[in-house]
């Protein structure tokens, strides 16, 4: 524990936990309550970022770089996912002139 930099130790790990939990919950509430697909998307990003934050925090406190590498992967995958997701949303918008998810009930088979 001794080689954790002083800068990091100024903020205890618990704070990171509370903060990322709050961030995650905001994300969930956003996903569940908002109707605009783009905002839902942004909320999902928020949740991903809360997880990223947690990973970084733990990896720093444990002096283990693996966590940070995971974060990079998550960011890369999330970026790719956003590209695909946005493309889908754009296509939906072109077709129905709306991104309101309440009118999107085409997921039935």
């Amino acid at each position, binding site marked *: 524990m001794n080689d954790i930099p002083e800068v990091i130790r100024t903020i205890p790990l618990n704070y990171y936990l509370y903060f990322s939990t709050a961030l995650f919950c905001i994300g969930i509430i956003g*996903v*569940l309550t908002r109707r605009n697909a783009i905002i839902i998307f942004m909320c999902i990003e928020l949740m991903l970022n809360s997880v990223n934050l947690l990973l970084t925090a733990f990896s720093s406190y444990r002096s283990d770089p693996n966590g940070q590498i995971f974060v990079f992967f998550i960011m890369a995958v999330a970026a790719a996912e956003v590209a695909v997701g946005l493309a889908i949303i754009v296509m939906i918008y072109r077709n129905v002139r709306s991104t309101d*998810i*309440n009118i999107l*009930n085409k*997921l039935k088979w």
Partner: protein
Amino acid sequence: MQEFILPANNAEMTWVCLLIPLLPLIGFLINGLGNRKLPKGLAGLVGCATVIGSFLLSLYLFFGFEGYGNRPYTTDIFNWIHVGALRIPFSFQIDQLSLIMLLLVTGVGSVIHIYSAGYMSHDENFGKFFSFLNLFVFSMLLLVMGSNYVMMFVGWEGVGLCSYLLIGFWNKVTPYNNAAKKAFIINRIGDLGFLLGIFLIFQTYGSVVYGEVFNQASQLSEVNDGVVIAITLLLFVGAMGKSAQLPLYTWLPDAMAGPTPVSALIHAATMVTAGIYMVIRSNVLYTLAPDTLEIVAIVGLATALFAATIGLFQNDIKKVLAYSTVSQLGYMFLALGVMAYSSSLFHVLTHAFFKALLFLGAGSVIHAMSGEQDLRKMGGLKKALPITFITFLIGTLAISGIPPFAGFFSKDELLAHVFVHSKVMWGFGVLTSFMTAFYMFRLLYLAFYGNFRGTEEQRHHLHESPAVMTIPLIILAILSTIGGFMGLPAVFSENHMLGNFLSPVYELARRAVPSAFEAHHLSHETEYMLMAVSVGVAVVAIIMAYFIYGKKRTVPAEEGAALSPLHKLVYNKYYVDELYNGLFVKPVMGLSTGLYRFVEKGIIDPIVNGFGKATLGGGRSLRFVQSGATGSYLLLMVLGIALILLLNFIN
């Protein structure tokens, strides 16, 4: 019995043995597959030719037997069942007993087949009939030729199936179907005993092959050993069903529903003799169990007497014959019970001749009367049906025990053995013999003498049967006349052909229990006396029948007429059928109905339907979950994750 029975070292014998049962099977397949396509002439030809072929091959075996050193042999066809310690070869055993049975089954069977070609010529299912007949003969041949109890059981079940098929041959008539079912079900009760007996034999002796079983039994088992008694009793239960003994006899009179040649085949040559064959085949076991034999004798005697009394008042020509069969089978078991195995088989043989003759004769009468079977509507048929009359008279004399016809010799020999065993049993046996002669002559007088009592239409229709039917009658009449000479009584001749021929079959039993086979010498005076009594009794019965039904021309009362209580009791066959109905059929039916109403409808149905309804309802409610709306999917997903987290947290 390895020391007695050796495998045939001769490929020719193997082929002959294989062909004997195979021919009727081929006939069955040809007629069965080509039922409606084959012309009647060809179907009849195939049906008869295959059985006659088997008969000729049996004759070949019979006459070759002496050349083979008079030594029993087995022919292995293939290794049939081999599981653990159980090893059952599919092989045939040819010895004195199976040879006699082979000749009987194929010989009398051939005659009946030929007769059927005439009798059934108007029937639309001619081919089907012949295929069943052939299958019947095939099963019976398997039964008598098999070298182990399992093969016997296969044949045993085969004849049971065929009797079901043939009794219910005219399956558009419900009572006939019921009769077929009755025969089948009652036989199943007996078969259960037989099967348990086979299991017990395997359990005890570790084999079901005759040679090994008998060899072991003769060396290992004590006289009246509990296991042997159990085995023999269980086997006897099987015989009771198949050979229609008390209390399992009720199917046989009902079996009259089938076409008449079938009755002749079942009653004379095949199925009902299976029980007797089985007991003689197992003679080692039975000799070791004198207690069982005593029971066999008592059951046989009771059946003989009981059925004979019922026969006295029957008005259906075939029913009289049916009860006489039951009665004669009782005689045979009586003989088995007093260890007169050969005499029993002798009576099987002579009975086969005259009973086949009587049934075919009755068939000829029924044919002439356009289906009428009621004796009260016949009478005076003597002139219209001369050949049938003469042959029928011979059959009646033979069954009544009038010398020199076949029945006299076998019955006399049988009764002599019974006399040695017990005087009381002999007395009842003679009483039975008296009743037999009486009801047979009652039948004869009612059918052939007096005035014709049928309709005008029937009178014009009366005609003698075609040659294809009368020739079998003549053959059987000749056999019924001379058949008895194969077993002349000791007073006439020291050489009892059949007895001497069969003697080696009891060799092992003789070794196991020598005391049981000590010759009982009846003095010649006693033997003459016994003969005189049995003939005298028969003659008195005939004279009585003549006075009542011949001279006074008494005709039995119409249906529904007032009868004396005793007469009514006997006429209604002691209400045994009603008793069984009340004791077994009704409670079972009631139980089934109750179970159906309360258990099936009240418990099982709701459960089964409940599952169906639950699935339907579940599907219907889950359908709303799959709305396709993205929002609700997201919500559900989050709730699911929350739930999983919660569960993790609790754990």
